[in-house]
């Protein structure tokens, strides 16, 4: 049910404005930005923390390595001291060196170099790095050996790469006995060994460790190098070795990072869903706006239709309250829309004189008991004039398929009704006039008919008077004349009775009548005219009929009309053919058929249809009412009247009358 106002419902203009969308878009954008920023801050914080841990761990690792190197250096210094005191022979050296190396696997070789730079002892035995008796040839080794001699300190060589994954560093500790240089004691570190044996296991689980030279080339790597998922790295110089050697650790990704990633993914996912739902919402809104546009266009069209139709529309709810009227309806009843809206029965335009009847019908409509066909109603306009309408009613169904009221459309038929009423009155008047005209014609004929016997009587009587005064008449002749007078008086009396019968005014009254009497009476009337025109009227009735239940005068009028028509149609026919024949047939015990045939000019086929309509006439001075009235009369008697061509030329008017069922 649309809202019954004249203007289309106001639609917020926001829907079409882009800025309407900025708020949610901005909110979502900011939200996502905040989330990402938060994540980033957290991440950074985490990273920083990890970095700190890493730095601390690295310091610890460097300390550990440094400590070990110092211990080793002290052990070597001990050996050197013992050698300087000459308290250490070759065997002792072997034992102590071998023992030490067994406990400190980062050292793979310990050897003694003579002052002449030749290796003297070497431990362990099986080591073939430095064979006793061989001079030191390696440049870096020589450099370190000589620096140790010069500085009287332990000196480390630069890393010597042995494999792609390992390198050696040698440390030389000089041996002085009372300022006398006795050579050096040296040890070989394997960098791999340092990483594997000096760094505890938990450390290498957490970090990927490697040793880099000054050019950041990897010299050795710790265990766990296969794992690549490192995020943080930190390097620290290994001062004891010098030469730019550094320890680098890369932290493995922690377990907490997975959760974080998932969180990020979740946030991003949720954001995506939000954006998507926003887009979907927007799409939906756009479709809705389009639908509303269409609806509004249709509403406008409907509004225009309602405004332009001449049909009055009125809707009431289930309680009979007016919920809608259109302009045409307002114009019809003369009340404004404001006055009608919300009005409850009795409605202002109901006819006060007929209010009960209208109310009954109105409530029947509300109850859905009104018959399906259209209803004719009369309303009263505001100015008191009447309006006739024909009303069609249909249930009003809302979007949920529920009836909310009744819609009625009304056509103004006042004009039509008025015309019909006028036509009916005219018809009545014409019937009366036609009857009077017929009566007038008959009266004229009858006056002539009365004149004849009256004249005859006058003649006879004057003849008698003459004869009696002159005494010339015989008794017989006078008697004869007087009898003739009597006869003529009778004749006049009959004519007068007939007139009285005809003129007597009365409503249609059906009484049992003998059809033969009716027809003979009609022939009696018509014969005056017929004789004047030399027309023969034949009447054949073979069977006897039971009395018919008809209005005698009306049927006589019909018969007379048909006979007169027949006579008029034969004015141009040759005299020997001027015959009107009346025949009666009984049809199946239910009705009888009366045929009036003439041999006149017949009826043009194009006139056949119009023949019985009022005001149709073929006669120059005819009124066109005769046959129309005849048909009405016959139909009043439940009969039929029609015309057909006479097989012998001319036309036949046939009518039927139902027979009274005397048996029941």
């Amino acid at each position: 049910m649309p809202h019954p106002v004249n203007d289309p419902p106001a639609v917020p203009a926001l829907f079409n404005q882009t800025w309407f969308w900025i708020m949610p878009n901005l909110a979502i954008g900011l939200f996502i930005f905040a989330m990402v920023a938060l994540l980033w801050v957290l991440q950074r914080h985490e990273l920083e923390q990890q970095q700190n841990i890493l730095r601390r761990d690295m310091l610890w690792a460097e300390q550990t390595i440094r400590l070990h190197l110092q211990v080793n250096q002290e052990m070597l210094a001990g050996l050197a001291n013992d050698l300087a005191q000459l308290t250490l022979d070759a065997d002792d050296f072997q034992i102590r060196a071998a023992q030490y190396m067994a406990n400190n696997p980062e050292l793979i070789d310990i050897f003694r170099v003579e002052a002449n730079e030749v290796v003297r002892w070497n431990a362990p035995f099986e080591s073939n790095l430095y064979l006793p008796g061989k001079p030191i040839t390696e440049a870096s080794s020589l450099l370190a050996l000589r620096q140790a001699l010069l500085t009287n300190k332990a000196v480390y060589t630069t890393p010597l790469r042995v494999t792609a994954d390992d390198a050696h560093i040698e440390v030389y500790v000089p041996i002085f006995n009372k300022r006398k240089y006795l050579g050096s004691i040296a040890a070989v570190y394997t960098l791999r060994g340092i990483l594997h044996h000096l760094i505890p296991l938990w450390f290498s689980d957490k970090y990927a460790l490697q040793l880099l030279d000054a050019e950041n080339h990897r010299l050795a790597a710790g265990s766990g190098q296969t794992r690549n998922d490192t995020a943080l790295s930190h390097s620290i110089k290994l001062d004891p070795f010098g030469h730019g050697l550094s320890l680098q650790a890369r932290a493995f990704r922690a377990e907490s990072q997975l959760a974080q990633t998932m969180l990020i993914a979740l946030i991003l996912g949720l954001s995506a869903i939000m954006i998507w739902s926003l887009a979907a919402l927007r799409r939906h809104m756009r479709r809705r706006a389009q639908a509303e546009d269409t609806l509004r266009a249709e509403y406008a069209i409907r509004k225009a239709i309602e405004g332009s139709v001449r049909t009055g529309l009125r809707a009431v709810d289930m309680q009979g309250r007016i919920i809608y009227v259109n302009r045409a309806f307002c114009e019809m009843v003369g009340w404004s829309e404001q006055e009608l809206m919300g009005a409850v029965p009795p409605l202002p335009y109901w006819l006060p004189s007929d209010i009960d009847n209208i109310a009954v019908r109105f409530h029947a409509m509300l109850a859905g008991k009104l018959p399906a066909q259209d209803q004719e109603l009369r309303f009263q306009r505001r100015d008191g004039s009447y309006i006739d309408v024909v009303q069609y009613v249909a249930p009003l169904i809302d979007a949920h398929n529920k009836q909310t009221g009744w819609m009625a459309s009304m056509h103004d038929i006042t004009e039509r009704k008025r015309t019909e009423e006028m036509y009916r009155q005219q018809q009545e008047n014409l019937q009366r006039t036609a009857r009077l005209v017929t009566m007038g014609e008959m009266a004229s004929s009858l006056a002539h008919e009365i004149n004849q016997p009256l004249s005859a009587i006058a003649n006879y009587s004057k003849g008698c008077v003459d004869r009696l005064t002159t005494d010339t008449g015989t008794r017989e002749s006078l008697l004869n004349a007087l009898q003739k007078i009597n006869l003529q008086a009778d004749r006049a009396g009959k004519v007068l009775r007939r007139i009285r019968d005809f003129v007597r005014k009365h409503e249609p009254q059906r009484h049992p009548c003998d059809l033969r009497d009716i027809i003979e009476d009609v022939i009696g009337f018509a014969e005056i005219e017929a004789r004047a025109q030399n027309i023969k009227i034949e009447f054949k009735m073979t069977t006897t009929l039971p009395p018919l239940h008809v209005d005698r005068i009306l049927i006589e009028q019909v018969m007379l009309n048909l006979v007169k028509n027949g006579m008029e149609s034969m004015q141009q026919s040759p005299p020997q053919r001027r015959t009107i024949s009346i025949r009666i047939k009984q049809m199946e015990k239910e009705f009888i058929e009366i045929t009036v045939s003439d041999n006149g000019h017949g009826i043009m086929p194009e006139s056949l249809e119009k023949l019985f309509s009022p005001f149709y006439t073929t006669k120059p001075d005819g009124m066109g009412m005769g046959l129309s009235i005849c048909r009405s009369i016959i139909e009043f008697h439940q009969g039929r009247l029609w015309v057909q061509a006479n097989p012998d030329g001319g036309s036949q008017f046939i009518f039927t009358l139902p027979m009274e069922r005397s048996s029941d």
Partner: protein
Amino acid sequence: MTNPNAKIYIVDDDEAILDSLRWLLESKGFLVETYASAAQFLTAYRWDYPGCLVLDVRMPDMSGLELYEKLTTLNYCLPVIFVTGHGDVPMAVTAIKKGAVDFIEKPFNDQQLVGIIHRCLALDAQCRNHANKSAAIATSMAQLTPRELEVMSLVVAGRHNKIIADQLGISIKTVEAHRAKVMEKMGAKSVADLVQLALHKNGLKPSGSNQV
């Protein structure tokens, strides 16, 4: 002056009227003949029967008016009285305009009818008299030669002999001879007589005028 043989001819389709009129008129001493239709009358009547016709206007087959017209074309003397019923007066007026003597409305006053009948019989007699005279003049004129007829018509027109002679291209003497012949054949004693004869021939119709 009325002819004792004159009869009253009545034509009416209504037998009662016919019979009663006969009864009435016979009581007034008229001779009456009745006919039920125009056709019957026409077969029975001859032009030289004197009398008058009482004719019903409205009749089947041939109406009174038609019969009257027929009689007029036949140049009969017989005067006609129309009898009209109610509503037929216009028809009767038409008949009078065409020269019928009179009409009388049913039911009629017998004195009036008798008066009209007498007038008609007189008219009939006069007419027949005129007719006889005309016939005699016609017989005389038939004896004239064409030249004599020419001369006569010019004399009647009032021309002098000299002018007639000039006009016809003949001598005055010859004109005078023709003129004497004409006077003799026509039985006229003077020019005035001759003029009267010529006027009778041309001006009077057997059925006459309705003024008596």
